[in-house]
């Protein structure tokens, strides 16, 4: 779009200044988190920006003091189960919605989209009661264990929507060719479509991963011992207990942030592209 003529010079510089300012504003909290996590307790109370000496033991201290090892492991297990389940179920649901003819398809899709409009705040209370009921009825534990933390989120309307968009755009010849080769829907989906879905699956998986890592209200409700509590709950409790220990809080925040940012940097291209698609009409 940038034409040769372009806008006058000062607007160009002005807009670049705006961008850079925005970038700095986006970064400051991260920089502060990192810097403060290496400070001594005294330094966090004085008006210091850069620690005189890097206090690496803050991380060790926070890790041990807040039992982050356990919470971290819990969060990883919960995330893996939830992401795996969501990807599988959402892909399986998106496939017929995108590529098969059956009665009631549009109605089913409309119902799925309707769940997007209902925030978790509304469903939280009844879902808690449902889980309590399941806990009492079923032979294995739901409350204070992984099923309560993962099963209610095993399918997501947003994921189904995104995957359906992608599947609809696949060429129709693929299915014709597969059918001539004698493949059924199941084989077609898992052997041919699945490998093609790398980018949207990464997007949807990242999205689910962030959601699972962020969950706070729900884990607070359905866990009562630290056995299955995720890192969000661990950090929240650590912060409300530790009081003034800013440097340890920041170290804890860095620990909790690390896996998510790592995953983001690994797949950032696919993810930003995929998320961008969600705002376009399809």
């Amino acid at each position, binding site marked *: 779009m940038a034409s040769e003529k372009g806008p006058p010079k000062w607007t160009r510089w002005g807009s670049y200044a705006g*961008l850079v300012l925005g970038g700095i504003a986006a970064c400051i*909290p991260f920089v502060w988190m990192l810097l403060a996590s290496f400070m001594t307790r005294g330094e966090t109370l004085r008006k210091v920006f850069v620690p005189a000496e890097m206090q690496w033991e803050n991380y060790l201290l926070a890790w041990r003091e807040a039992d982050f090892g356990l919470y971290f492991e819990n969060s990883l297990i919960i995330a893996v189960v939830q992401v795996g389940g969501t990807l599988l179920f959402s892909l399986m649901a998106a496939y017929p919605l995108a590529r098969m003819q059956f009665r009631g398809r549009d109605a089913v899709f409309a119902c799925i989209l309707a769940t997007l409009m209902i925030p978790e705040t509304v469903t939280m209370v009844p879902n808690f009661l449902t889980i309590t009921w399941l806990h009492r009825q079923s032979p294995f534990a739901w409350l204070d264990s992984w099923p309560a933390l993962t099963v209610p989120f095993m399918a997501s309307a947003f994921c189904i929507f995104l995957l359906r968009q992608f599947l609809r755009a696949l060429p129709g010849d693929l299915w014709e060719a597969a059918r001539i080769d004698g493949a059924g829907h199941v084989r077609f989906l898992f052997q041919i479509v699945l490998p093609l879905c790398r980018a949207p699956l990464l997007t949807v998986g990242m999205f689910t991963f962030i959601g699972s890592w962020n969950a706070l209200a729900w884990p607070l409700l359905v866990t009562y011992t630290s056995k299955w509590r995720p890192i969000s709950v661990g950090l929240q409790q650590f912060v409300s207990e530790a009081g003034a220990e800013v440097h340890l809080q920041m170290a804890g925040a860095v620990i909790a942030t690390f896996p998510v940012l790592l995953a983001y940097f690994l797949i950032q291209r696919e993810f930003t592209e995929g998320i961008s698609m969600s705002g376009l009409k399809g």
Partner: protein
Amino acid sequence: MKNKGKEQLIAWGFMAPALIVLAAFGLFPIGYAFYVSLHRWRIKQEALIGLEHYVRALGDPQFFAYFLLGLISIWAASRWFGRRRWRHRRSLVSVVVYALLCAVALWLMSLGLPGMLESGDGRLYNGFKVTFFYALGTIPVQLTVAMMLACVLFNSWRGKGFFRVLFFLPYVTPVIASAVVFRTIFSPHPSSLANRFWAILGMEEQRWLYENKSVVFLALEGLGVSSCPAWVNEWFPSLALVSIILYNIWVYIGYDTVILLAGLSAIPAHYYEAAEIDGAGSWQVFRHITLPLVSPTLFFLSMVAVIGTFKAFNHIYIMRTPGARDTVDVLSIAIFDQLFEHHDAGYAACLAFILFVAILALTLLQNRALGKRVFYGE
């Protein structure tokens, strides 16, 4: 025929797991919440008490009836004015009827609302108020700034990818971690970043997240007005809430920018070429080409933001302090407290159901008000 039946079976079989989960934990809760709200319900189901919870929450039914009638007459007025037959020749009579309906609506509401506020649950109405402040403080600012950033990024020929990754960082960072960071940034301690920044500007230290006085009150106080009426504190957001709003803006601007950027990229270039040939100025291009063509994306983002306002919980739960009192307690916090602290599932379900109805009404309203102005092309 047999083959077709098999296809149906496969389709439903594929969808079954997702549909079961979404039905059980996405749609069923609406009906279940209403059912639970009609009972006394702590750990287990107890006596059926009908609408008692709703009376406790919303207040005296008489006042609520006035309020409801007021809403209905507003709706009637808008229907009356929007009738297709009248749209082009509005006679005096129709204008008079419209004005009358509006006046009746206002009168009914003024009868109902104060009574509801008085006799209903203060936490519910406070929750609505805080949620309203929160939405008003975040959505317009967020979308305007994001629109500006997206336009600049779109027109710049370098660094697009870099800034996109950078602006997206706050959105992908775990809310828990970034909220903890902002808790220390907006702490009342003199060494907090917010206070240091404030000191550079030559202002007095503030209590930020611990401050329950409204920003307007504090500003007036800073200007030397010593005695402010109480409503200045009532009807403006507290400094604690504004701090949380700033956090929310920080998180979502990047997300909005990236999505708007995709929307801008989808506008066909020939529109711009045509405008250039016609000699349109840059503001005219923005107003008549960019804005209408990107409006579906803006509409989508505003919907996401409104739903997000009602969802907002994690960061508020972490950033709320005893000092802020209830000035940051949005509805989701109030509902959670009801369940988590007071173990009153019946009443919590009642509040959740009221919230659901409010969201439903708001979504329909938003669709009606904005949906028509969105340009979806041919």
